[in-house]
């Protein structure tokens, strides 16, 4: 009973933060065309690049753009110090076998998340025509 009461109040004390972002898909395609693998490797992990590769071996720019939108949204929640630029690859978007997307934080983003008391990050991403967007919900204790 006491544990249930503790859990109830723990839930009530949880706070939330949201981040969102919108990315122009042709900008991502243009950057890849101009800067090639340097661009991809600066922003995306190998797994993300693999997840965004289509059956004909070309990249899905809408998928890449959606992941950028998630990363930017997470950065808005993590709020790095004024002079810090979080490494893009420290925020990794994963897809499970059912197609659900989730975020995995690596150093130093994971340390910043701990500092902000973030327990979980829930993401949605979508794209339509020339834009990709993302919404991220953070639960903090």
């Amino acid at each position, binding site marked *: 009973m006491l544990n249930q009461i503790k859990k109830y109040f723990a839930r009530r004390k949880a706070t939330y933060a949201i981040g969102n972002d919108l*990315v122009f898909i042709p*900008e*991502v395609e243009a*950057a890849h065309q*101009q*800067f090639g693998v*340097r*661009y991809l490797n*600066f*922003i995306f992990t190998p797994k993300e690049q693999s997840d965004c590769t289509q059956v004909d071996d070309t990249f899905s720019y809408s998928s890449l753009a959606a992941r*950028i939108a998630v990363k*930017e949204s997470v*950065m808005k929640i993590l709020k790095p110090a*004024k*002079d*810090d*630029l979080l*490494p*893009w690859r420290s925020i990794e978007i994963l897809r499970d076998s059912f197609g659900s997307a989730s975020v995995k934080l690596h150093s130093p983003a994971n340390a910043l998340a701990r500092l902000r008391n973030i327990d979980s990050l829930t993401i949605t991403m979508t794209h339509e025509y020339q834009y990709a967007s993302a919404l991220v919900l953070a639960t903090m204790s």
Partner: protein
Amino acid sequence: MQDKIRKILKEHGRLAVDAATLTETSDLYQSGMTSHASVNVMLALEGEFDVEFPDNMLKRSVFESIASITSAINQLKN
């Protein structure tokens, strides 16, 4: 060097203002440069000036103005 930097900012910075009107110390982020645009600016600078920004220079302050970019490139070239 600054003309080349302005050209790169015009092409890749996605600024809300004309890069030609920026002063040396104008804040590029306040002028509309997003985090994603700053990546493109950085990669274009590396190509144009044949330098590579090390991890310890990947800071907002390095890319926040024409003056700070100029200073960083000079530092990398020397």
